[in-house]
């Protein structure tokens, strides 16, 4: 009888260990998947750019600096690999694209063209997807980092080879602005 109780307790402890280990692995996989989603969306945006630049060029020939800014930012984004680099390039490209759309505002013919309108819709949905995949990634990193740093899961991070991950932080002057507080 006693041995049965001891075995039962041991089994419970083993199950507890497995649960903690699996939780860390699961959270880590979720972060990897969220990261893959960011890459997919950044790639999509990158693929849209040549078409968009060509379309705008057709109407606005004298905006060379704006086009160059977009093309340089796009090239930087394709070579970045670490989280911080990708995030920085992403922020730059977002800025450059905003500049491109601002330029388009000055050309009514361009704004009215069906091709531009569909590209603009595709760009805005892709920008949203990038932003949401970023948000989803950061939420997952937050859960993982909390688990890695708190008891009891922190005791297993070494065995599971899971460590804290980097947040995806974009330098975007627009989102850095202090919110307007009214009383």
């Amino acid at each position, binding site marked *: 009888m006693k041995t049965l109780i001891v075995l039962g307790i041991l089994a419970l402890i083993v199950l507890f260990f497995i649960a903690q280990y699996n939780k860390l692995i699961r959270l880590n996989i979720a972060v990897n998947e*969220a990261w893959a*989603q960011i890459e997919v*969306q950044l790639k999509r945006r990158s693929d849209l750019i040549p078409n968009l630049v060509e379309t705008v060029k057709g109407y606005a020939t004298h905006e060379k600096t704006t086009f160059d800014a977009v093309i340089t930012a796009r090239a930087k984004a394709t070579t970045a690999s670490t989280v911080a680099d990708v995030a920085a390039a992403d922020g730059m490209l977002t800025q450059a694209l905003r500049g491109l759309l601002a330029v388009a505002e000055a050309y009514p013919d361009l704004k009215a063209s069906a091709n531009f309108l569909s590209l603009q*819709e595709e760009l805005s*949905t892709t920008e*949203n*997807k990038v932003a*949401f*995949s970023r948000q*989803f990634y950061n939420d997952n990193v937050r859960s993982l980092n909390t688990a890695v740093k708190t008891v009891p899961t922190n005791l297993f991070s070494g065995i599971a080879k899971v460590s804290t991950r980097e947040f995806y932080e974009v330098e975007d002057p627009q989102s850095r602005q202090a919110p307007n507080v009214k009383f």
Partner: protein
Amino acid sequence: MQAANRRKTIGLLAGMGLLTGIVVYAALTYFGSSGVAIVPVAVGIALIGVWGSYYGSDKLVLTMTGAKEIQESDNPKLFGLVQEVCIASGLKLPKIAIVVDSAPNAFATGRNPEHALIAFTTGILDVMERDELQGVIAHEMSHVANRDTLVSAVAATTAGAIAILSDVLTRMMWFGGARRNRDSNSNPLLIVFSLLILVLAPIAAVLLKSAISRKRESLADATAVSFTRNPAGLRAALEVLARDSTVVQQRSTSVAHIWIESPLDSSSVSKLFSTHPPIQERIAALRAMESLG
């Protein structure tokens, strides 16, 4: 807020269970053992109802609302918007359907997030801006994420089962079933009391069903904001719905609770029986979130 809302829903579902128990107890008190036979029948009907709504709810709802499923090439903009919300929530892309109706409205159905379907009227796609539509989609995807489609199906069938049970028992009362046992159960007060419960229970069940649905609407608004982090979009969408006076053509009460805005004319339904919280209350709640954010 979401945790509190979830607790209230569990409480309401428990209330549903308790109500069923009281009805059964009242039946047994009134009829003695001869009433027992009806209980498994009612429970069986309820189970078949729940099972049917679990597997067939999406198809049934499609037929009842006249929604037609569409592919990405039919409306790339709408698909883009739904994909955005799916990325934000980490949910699988649902099936998307369109109801040809000029009244702006939308609903979600399906037994679990893997078999979800969300539908929009052509009216809502015409009148709403990008951000507003995103808010509406986030609201519908919240119903999917919170498994509201399942909860409301269970609530509806439980309410239905109580109604059937109580109806059958009331009939038995007039057709002799009771007479045999009247001598063995001589307390008249208890009999009157049981009779009251049998009459009032179906009304209580409908009230509970509406309350569950109303809690779920507020919870879905809150979850939607946690997906998009943009309460202003959904708030603007609800304001559009509040201004709009057209209602969806088919007004079957049995599917009323699945729409984002109640298709029934609000003046004819009192607040207690309404499946949706007043739209102004929802707008005010979203405004409060905006001022926080």
